């Protein structure tokens, strides 16, 4: 891999990370205030659709962005109604919002544009386009021949849409709000001990609504970014589970803004790799090492624990080892060569597996083997004054 490829990969990672980051920070504000939000996905999707539709109609992408934020806030308030005012189940409310957005965007898109549930392509004026910094090269051919510093500047620093830079700015901004303002102090308090906030004479309800509305704004920007900056228009289910991955990133980030940036960049890198390298070839020996290695690690972990661990992790190890062996034998017999020689043969990793990697990583993150995080104490529970 040459330097320019690495720069390109980094550039793509940032692009992919931005919607995750905005959604992750949305989740951060919401969960720090004690409201779980599974509905990030739905809010982004609704915003993606409406901002594309309104940009198209108005010809002004900023109006589209506002519309996207508006619909996202509306869904946030519905979530607030369910989980704050009526003390309902926050998970169920979030799930309902996801379905609602998934269904409604397609139905309305068809009703308005009759193109099979998508918006028409946005013209250049109705999109967020890349900003070219002074002196930055724009043509790929020029960049490839430029010095590494220039490559970095032109490809990585310059050329993103304004929303990317805004998205990155939300990180220090969120940090500052959370840790340096009165609002932030109260917000963190209400997710930990709403009774302390209540007895201090502050409205728990108002604080929590503010938090979900902030989440709505951030999800709105994230959705608009997807349909007006990354792509030129809305397509069905275009958020592609970023809302859920953002939640995993949030846990990985231990509910902190700067960590969230790191976590989202990591997931962004996964997507960038997935996009760029559809066809990954691996030598059989590496597959063996990887699979048998993980099987061994899990077995060792399980053996020092209880029966259930041995059962589940042992079973999983057997499955992994079996896959490894099948690959090995399969290659050997398929190529008609010896077992040893087969180890150095390359096989294509199924593209479905590559596409599943981010999800797999989410599960590993949630398993909590990568650092144990303590979620906000009052998270997910409606606040009821005690008698």
């Amino acid at each position: 891999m040459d330097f320019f490829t690495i720069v390109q990969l980094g550039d793509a990672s940032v692009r992919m990370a931005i919607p995750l980051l905005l959604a992750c920070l949305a989740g951060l504000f919401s969960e720090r205030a004690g409201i779980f939000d599974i509905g990030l996905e739905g809010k982004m999707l609704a915003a993606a659709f409406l901002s594309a539709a309104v940009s198209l109609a108005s010809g002004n992408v900023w109006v589209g962005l506002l519309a996207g934020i508006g619909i996202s806030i509306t869904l946030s308030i519905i979530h607030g109604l369910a989980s704050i005012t009526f003390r309902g189940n926050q998970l169920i409310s979030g799930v309902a919002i996801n379905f609602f957005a998934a269904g409604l965007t397609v139905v309305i898109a068809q009703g308005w544009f009759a193109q099979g549930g998508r918006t028409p392509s946005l013209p250049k004026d109705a999109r967020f386009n890349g900003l070219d910094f002074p002196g930055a090269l724009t043509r790929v051919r020029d960049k490839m021949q430029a010095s590494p510093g220039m490559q970095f500047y032109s490809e990585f620093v310059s050329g993103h849409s304004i929303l990317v830079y805004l998205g990155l700015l939300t990180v220090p901004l969120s940090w500052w709000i959370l840790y340096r303002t009165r609002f932030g102090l109260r917000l963190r308090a209400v997710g930990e001990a709403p009774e302390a906030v209540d007895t201090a004479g502050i409205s728990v309800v108002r604080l929590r609504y503010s938090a979900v509305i902030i989440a709505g704004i951030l999800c709105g920007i994230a959705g608009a970014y997807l349909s007006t900056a990354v792509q030129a228009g809305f397509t069905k289910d275009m958020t592609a589970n970023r809302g859920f991955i953002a939640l995993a990133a949030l846990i990985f980030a231990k509910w902190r803004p700067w960590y969230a940036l790191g976590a989202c960049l990591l997931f962004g890198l996964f997507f960038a790799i997935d996009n760029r390298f559809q066809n990954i070839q691996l030598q059989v020996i590496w597959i063996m090492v990887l699979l048998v290695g993980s099987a061994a690690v899990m077995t060792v972990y399980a053996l020092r624990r209880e029966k259930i661990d041995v059962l589940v992790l042992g079973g999983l190890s057997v499955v992994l080892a079996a896959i490894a062996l099948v690959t090995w034998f399969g290659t050997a017999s398929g190529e008609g060569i010896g077992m040893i020689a087969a180890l150095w043969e390359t096989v294509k990793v199924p593209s479905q597996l590559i596409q599943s990697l981010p999800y797999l990583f989410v599960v590993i993150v949630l398993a909590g083997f990568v650092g144990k995080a303590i979620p906000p104490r009052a998270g997910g529970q409606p606040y009821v004054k005690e008698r």
Partner: protein
Amino acid sequence: MSEIAPAIELVGISKAFGPVQANKDISIRVMPGTIHGIIGENGAGKSTLMSILYGFYKADAGEIFISGQKTVIPDSQAAIAAGIGMVFQHFKLVQNFSVLENVVLGAEDGALLRPSLAKARKQLKSLAEEYELNVDPDAIIQDIGVGMQQRVEILKALYRQADILILDEPTGVLTPAEADQLFRILGRLKEEGKTIILITHKLREIMDITDTVSVMRRGEMTSTVKTSETNPADLAERMVGRKVLLRVDKVPAQPKDVILEVKDLNITDEKGVHRLKGVSFNVRAGEILGIAGVSGNGQSELLEVLGGYEKATGEILLNGEAIDLTGAFSDGQSRRARGIAHVPEDRQHEGLIMDFTAAENTAFGYHHDPKYQRNRLLMDNAAIMKDAQEKMDRFDVRPPNPMLAAKNFSGGNQQKVVVAREIERDPDLLLVGQPTRGVDIGAIEFIHQQIVALRDAGKAILLVSVELDEIMGLSDRIAVMFDGQIMGERLPAETDEKELGLMMAGVTDGETA
């Protein structure tokens, strides 16, 4: 007559929760610069009254006057503005915030945090000097003890310039020594002209520190007297409405063989805190061993280990045979099979499932019992129902309806369901934790009688309670726990509250003599 206006005057306050009348036409005058005690049983309506004063509930009827001014208190904000500060029984602190942040929360000076924190830091320093309320402003709440946390609560109120301080059962979590320290602080506050309302159910505290005392019973304010003109027996009678037996009626114990033997029990939790430190004791058949101590000193953990849902190292023998403490048989089901019954400390979160019916709850923990099974596959719900009905009749649970969900019973009746379930197993060893917490006097007497009856039937009983009166009244032997250790054992006849109190505060055996 030029009279000073009362700091607080309540006139005709009434409040109902559905059919329950929590406060009935209550009037009270609290004079400034005094300590005014409010005493009453559980459920007498003390906390409701104070919640109305602090703006948590809106009274159905009645008026509030603060320093002679008619005041409407729709929320806590208004209460704070009126100069009222409240220290709740369960502290309202953000566990992972610093002391400073907790104090500032809700009383910030502007949108930015830093100036507020700096100002509060200065203020805390002067408050500390004024009232002997020393606390490290940068300590994180979850790292400091309950006594300290209580000081933070008082500081919170003072920082908001409260003139009237309400303390709800402030000594429940304190050792007698810590309580004395608290009382010194309260005395100091009184000298400075603050008005203090002390809510408690402990007669001793009322007698020790208050100037005036009001008694509440069943939602009504029955009387208000000068503390100097009353005595504990008189107050007790006013509280309950009849003469009460302050002692439990029982014959001397006749201990027989050792049933339970605990040797060198240790627990270290996942944070590395040593919860139990080499606990050893034994309980004989036909005796009640009472474990005294301020809550949070390892008693809960001890009960959990014995009840089979906490792991520990050490040795426990039941009838001379070892009990599995860490392996496959270290669970509640195995304990029950060995003849250990357990009335847990927290009936709402452990002893009962509040959404289950009373019938389902009488089988709880014993759901594998063959008598509740129709065949190998199915449970016999009719048998459970019949069994529950019988138990409820014998223990006079009201209403005697096994189909009613547990949450619809009063605290006392809930506890009777638990006690009935455990005692009727005819266990070799009964573990009892806080048997009368939140239970009305009538049910207390009944439950105490049942425990004594089980003792007289030759069973071993381990009683854990934070109520020293209960320990003194029921136990045949008393062990005191402090900081995960047994500080020593005493016979009830040969000790008194003072000595036990010192032991509960960690003064070791030798020093008390």
